[in-house]
């Protein structure tokens, strides 16, 4: 079999050996090229090239400071092509972009490179979250733990360590926070202002911050403390730390606390601490029943009243909330409300409003006074973001489609007279939840119970609150000005049907 050897010498040219080896490799990939070598003409290298069968008489004359290009190919034209390519590659300094963006692998290295870092957001799988949160604390970072499924012992241990180090742990299961006006994780673009929020849950913070923003006031910071912070075991460590921070913050004038009912002794501790503060507090302990508040605090039972109380004015009713003409009428009048919530706290608030009106309420996450679904008569309010619905499925705030099946079920249930849904906007949420809802309803045409929605968000959110409201109204959905108002509207609809 014949072959062609072609050598070229560049006198006095020095090119780094690695660059040369990379060029050789590219040449070897060309059609018809058997072997290629680019090396400086030292005796050792010439020997290597000779052994490889690429050296011609020309190449043998090279001096140590000369660059030798040596190619062995199937035929002269392949050899020449390869030679041209070699000269080409040698001539053009590669401006090749590195695809590699170097990222730190550990918190330690990240902090070493960015000493001004002050907050870690941890959203890895629950089994790893505690360890990462601990590393964050050890590296002097405050931590927002978005992950859930940490044990209560891990939570206690982390919050103790944080307290000893003068750091804050938000969460676990903290979906929402706002620090210095910056929305974190699932949060909304709200107005800046002087009202601080301490919240045990994401959507509680979202609803209050959005309502306050719509009421013409603004938020300084919103600190999420996790749903178990006010338990007996955790003892309110993060809540107390948050109160300290907001007390010391000159930009905060009024503090709103939103929580589920806490353990008795913990309530006492929190109230004692509140009493020591010079600032006024609004406390919303969903479902806690009557309590006596410290002098500088007001206790309310809904997110809406907390927002109105803190902002110092009332929500205006937006537009006409009467049942729109042309809206589908029911054939059989159902008398119960079905609530399908993406936000757990919104579900809780809805339950409380109904209980306040002496209605029987069932829920998969019952507040005191509600019961688990037991087949008996009553309204059914579901938190679709709860664990049992999100195993292996996306959360309804991220993907509203998962609510559709429940929606259809509710529509087809003759006992249901009204359906309440929450449409949550902001960072992390689906880009167009109203459209998803409207599409599901469109497929269902005519006779159906009235759908009542509230839109938790602002016009500055990506989804645009006004746009979302329009889409919903066009689909025949009644839009209430808050979650509390939505459930009230639904109640008035079924009571009307019931004859008052």
């Amino acid at each position, binding site marked *: 079999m014949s072959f062609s050897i072609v050598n070229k010498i560049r006198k006095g040219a020095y090119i780094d050996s690695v660059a040369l080896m990379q060029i050789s490799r590219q040449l070897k990939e060309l059609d018809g090229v058997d072997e290629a070598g680019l090396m400086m003409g030292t005796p050792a290298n010439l020997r290597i090239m000779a052994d490889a069968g690429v050296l011609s008489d020309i190449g043998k004359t090279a001096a140590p400071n000369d660059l030798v290009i040596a190619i062995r190919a199937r035929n002269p034209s392949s050899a020449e092509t390869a030679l041209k390519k070699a000269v080409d590659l040698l001539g053009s300094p590669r401006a090749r972009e590195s695809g590699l963006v170097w990222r*730190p692998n550990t918190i330690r290295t990240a902090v070493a490179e960015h000493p001004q870092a002050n907050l870690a957001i941890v959203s890895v799988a629950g089994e790893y979250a505690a360890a990462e949160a601990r590393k964050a604390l050890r590296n002097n970072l405050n931590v927002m733990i978005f992950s859930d499924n940490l044990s209560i012992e891990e939570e206690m241990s982390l919050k103790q360590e944080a307290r000893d180090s003068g750091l804050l742990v938000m969460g676990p299961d903290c979906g929402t926070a706002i620090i210095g006006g910056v929305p*974190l994780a699932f949060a909304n673009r709200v107005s800046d202002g002087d009202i601080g929020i301490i919240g045990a849950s994401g959507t509680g913070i979202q609803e209050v911050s959005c309502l306050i923003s719509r009421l013409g006031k603004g938020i300084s910071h919103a600190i999420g403390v996790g749903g178990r912070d006010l338990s007996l075991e955790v003892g309110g*460590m993060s809540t107390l730390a948050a109160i300290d*921070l907001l007390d010391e913050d000159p930009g905060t004038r009024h503090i709103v606390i939103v929580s589920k009912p806490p353990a008795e002794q913990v309530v006492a501790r929190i109230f004692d601490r509140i009493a020591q503060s010079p600032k006024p507090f609004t406390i919303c302990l969903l479902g806690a029943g009557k309590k006596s508040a410290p002098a500088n605090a007001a206790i309310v039972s809904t997110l809406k009243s907390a927002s109105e109380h803190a902002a110092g004015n009332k929500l205006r009713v937006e537009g006409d909330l009467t049942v729109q003409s042309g809206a589908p009428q029911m054939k059989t009048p159902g008398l119960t409300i079905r609530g399908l919530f993406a936000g757990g706290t919104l579900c809780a608030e809805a339950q409380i409003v109904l209980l306040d009106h002496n209605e029987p309420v069932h829920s998969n996450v019952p507040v005191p006074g509600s019961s688990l679904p037991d087949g008996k008569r009553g309204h059914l309010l579901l938190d679709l973001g709860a664990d049992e619905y999100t195993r292996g499925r996306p959360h309804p705030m991220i993907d509203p489609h998962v609510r559709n099946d429940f929606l259809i079920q509710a529509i087809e249930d003759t006992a249901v007279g009204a359906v309440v849904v929450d449409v949550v906007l902001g960072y992390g949420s689906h880009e167009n939840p109203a459209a998803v809802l409207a599409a599901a309803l469109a497929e269902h045409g005519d006779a159906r119970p009235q759908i009542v929605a509230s839109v938790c968000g602002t016009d500055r959110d990506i989804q645009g609150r006004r746009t979302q409201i329009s889409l919903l109204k066009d689909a025949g959905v009644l839009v209430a000005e808050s979650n509390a108002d939505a459930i009230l509207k639904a109640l008035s609809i079924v009571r009307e049907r019931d004859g008052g």
Partner: protein
Amino acid sequence: MVRLNMMEFDSRENRPKNRLLSEKLCVVNIGLEQFAADLRQMDIPVVHLDWKPPAGGNLRLATLLSKLED
């Protein structure tokens, strides 16, 4: 019996002061990349970690590490 976690009212002056609310936010993000992307869009300094479970997910080694690490 559950140990009641009562906060001792040790003087707050003894604990280091937390500057989170007064400093410019600078975030280290571990986990969902979307959070870092959102922050970057807001021009907030954020470092997203190239994170993997410690010890490649080997529970025995991860537990050992947790007892030996700084």
